[in-house]
């Protein structure tokens, strides 16, 4: 195996190790702190890579990227505030566990699932890069449309006890996603004349407003202050045997779903975690219902987003197709050093490819250390008394939101969504499906319209290929399965 002969010898140099550690440390920090995100940190440190050895610079940037996925769950669990958009869904069960005094277990499960998910993602990268990359190429717009609809239906009821409420939130999210430039004609729509809305609503402003500001205001205003565990002892992190058993299958399912989603361009880790949670809702047989503090609800999304953050490298490195802004920064860092990501990269620059894979293993191990024995450090940051913590969080949310586009308008937007979040939560609507609709709606739209353009308006074009047909039929089956138990419960109520 070249990873042992070549990879680790490259990744274990002092230089590469140092920058890998720096990357995962920065990544965990921006992940833990709500508001700050990986993209801002990566683009700030990007010029530094000009002057580093290629592998060191890449290991650092990559470390920030997947490190943030580890850190993101911490604030979700402790404060009900997602540190990253992809951990928004982890808050649903994670925060409930915290309220039950099981924060330590939730943090442990999140990290363990993250590690398993990351590992499965790396293994997929080591052994399946070729076939997985081919899978990405086999997907055209009909396939993307089918898989997005599948994802939408699979997670339609995320975080809501009443599916109808979830669907309302989903629909609002889809509508918000329509703001901006029409993907095919380039015409602007629903911008209310605001130039700042021409490219759509900034996702970070939406997430930070709905979840960040909204949650802070709700927690500050509620009398039953949720007990943030001030101290997480290592002992309190040890899950019971039953919890370990219940966590295994969701972790594996989440890892596989995340590995697949990560490969697809334009989907990202947020869709992965939602899909992981959605699948658990459908196929999981949890004794504790999801949404009321089930370890499954923490394990599945965290495994999924970490698996996705690793497999996202597959199309970037082996096809030269970066699927997200973060991956585009990695892509740029490779180009700077004269490495052309593509099918020949593994054979032409094996030391970089395998060195990077080895650094992922090292980085994931470092993250395990940073997030289990050293979790106390992060917890202490987040367990300041609310009267100190919340102003800090609001400040970070503002800084983070502003730094994405250097736009003051986005701050107003975040404030607006903060208000909306408060109203929704007071009315017992969960904001998570709104975010899902906001992310998936535009994807579904562009691929639907592309499919229609390719088939010249023939609706049967959606069933043009076996993959698309399979996913659409799977979606139909899921809808039927969804409907059957509900009509049973409905009739039992009568």
């Amino acid at each position, binding site marked *: 195996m070249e990873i042992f002969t070549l990879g680790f010898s490259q990744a274990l140099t002092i230089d590469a190790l140092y920058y890998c550690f720096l990357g995962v440390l920065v990544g965990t920090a921006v992940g833990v702190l709500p508001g700050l995100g990986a993209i801002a940190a990566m*683009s700030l440190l990007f010029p530094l890579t000009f002057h580093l*050895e290629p592998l060191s610079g890449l290991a650092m940037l990559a470390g920030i990227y997947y490190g943030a996925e580890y850190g993101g769950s911490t604030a979700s669990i402790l404060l009900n505030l997602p540190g990253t958009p992809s951990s928004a869904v982890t808050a649903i069960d994670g925060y409930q566990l915290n309220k039950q005094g099981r924060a330590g277990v939730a943090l442990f499960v999140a990290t363990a699932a993250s590690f398993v998910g990351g590992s499965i993602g790396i293994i997929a990268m080591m052994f399946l890069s070729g076939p997985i990359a081919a899978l990405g190429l086999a997907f055209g717009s009909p396939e993307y449309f089918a898989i997005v609809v599948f994802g939408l239906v699979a997670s339609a009821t995320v975080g809501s006890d009443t599916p109808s409420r979830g669907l309302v939130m989903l629909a609002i999210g889809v509508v918000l996603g329509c703001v901006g*430039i029409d993907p095919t004609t380039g015409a602007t729509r629903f911008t209310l004349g605001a*130039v700042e809305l021409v*490219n759509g609503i900034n996702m970070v402003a939406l997430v930070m407003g709905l979840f960040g500001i909204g949650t802070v205001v709700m927690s500050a205003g509620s009398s039953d202050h949720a007990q943030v565990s001030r101290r997480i002892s290592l002992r309190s992190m040890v899950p019971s045997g039953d919890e370990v058993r219940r966590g295994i299958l969701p972790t594996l399912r989440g890892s596989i779903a995340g590995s697949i989603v990560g490969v697809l361009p334009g989907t990202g880790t947020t869709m992965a975690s939602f899909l992981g949670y959605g699948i658990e809702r459908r196929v999981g047989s949890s004794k504790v219902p999801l949404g009321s503090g089930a370890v499954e609800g923490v394990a599945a999304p965290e495994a999924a987003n970490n698996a996705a953050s690793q497999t996202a490298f597959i199309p970037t490195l082996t096809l030269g197709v970066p699927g997200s802004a973060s991956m585009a920064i990695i892509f*740029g860092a490779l180009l700077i050093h004269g490495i052309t990501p*593509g099918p020949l990269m593994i054979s032409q620059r094996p030391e970089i490819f395998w060195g990077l894979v080895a650094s992922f293993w090292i980085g994931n191990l470092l993250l395990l250390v940073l997030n289990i024995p050293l979790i106390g450090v992060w917890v202490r940051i987040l367990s300041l008394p609310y009267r100190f913590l919340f102003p800090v969080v609001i400040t970070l949310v503002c800084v983070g939101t502003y730094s994405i586009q250097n736009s003051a308008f986005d701050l107003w937007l975040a404030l607006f969504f903060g208000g909306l979040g408060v109203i929704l939560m007071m009315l017992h609507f969960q904001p998570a499906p709104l975010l899902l609709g906001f992310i998936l709606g535009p994807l579904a739209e562009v691929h639907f319209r592309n499919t229609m353009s390719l088939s010249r308006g023939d609706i049967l074009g959606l069933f043009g290929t076996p993959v698309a047909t399979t996913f659409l039929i799977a979606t139909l089956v899921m809808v039927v399965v969804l409907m059957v138990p509900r009509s049973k419960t409905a009739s039992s109520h009568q």
Partner: protein
Amino acid sequence: MKFLHLLPLALSLSAPFAGAVHAQDKFPSRAVNLIIPQPPGGSTDFSGRVLADGLSRHWGVQVRAINVPGGNTVPAVTQMETSRPDGHTVLLDGGSSSSMLPIVMPDQKHDLSKRTFLAMFAESPMIFVVSGKSKINSLADLVSVVKANPENFSWITNGGTGVGDLAFGQLFEAAEVRASVTRPVAASGGSPAAAQVAGGHVMAAAGSLSSIAGFLQSGDLRAIAVLGQSRLASLPDVPTAAEAGHDIIAVQWGAVSGPANMPPEVIKEWQKAISAVQADKATVERLQNGGIAMLSGGTSAVSERVTAETSVMQRIFGRKD
């Protein structure tokens, strides 16, 4: 030890404070902001950050690359136009923030004639690509395929007015067909676009070298024509469109522009600095690796480029069909 490389960064971070002691009239007297009208990642951001890094080292003053994406570049352009014309805030200009603006945002009033074009920096031509399995082998083939059956021709659009749309607009002009009868397929960037064509889902795309290089290596894509003035060093066998008999030009270019009324000595200092960056071998190589070539030329070169591109834009997008 490689940690020493952090030193320039630390120095550049402290530079703004050091700069404060210089006399006010000397440019640059403090940190310089280079506004990039695109989000992080992607080739424009890439060239902007390489330029900022080169300028930082040339002046010994921090040059910050600031992304102000979205709004069809209007927020970035507005920020540049409303800043003081002392050279400390400039825009990484390009087609989308100059010649395309009046087409894309007709109700926005940005007077291009008042903008101070400082100097050209870099360019990367679009390249027509088709699937490696396609029967199309030349630009002539492509034109005849479009002409014979425009209703079946699928191509990648960047949302109506991108540089790729400019390329296909000219192709349709050459084939004498209307764009509205073809099958445009939207893609969210150069790389996903390349994947759609490589996978055989869409017939053709116009992309920059960095987004197609991987698939050219694997044979999943075939380059048909370079839509610039000359052939590319890395694709010596691919002719330019002009060589293949069609005058199609679609180039992504980058220049540096400032607000109106910049003092001549600041303009001169900027032009000197950009030339110095362009003479730096390491910087040239970094850009070349990203499929971007240096492009020299001062104020007149930029304004000529804008004028020429504007007239093509008006011809392609200005008419209603």
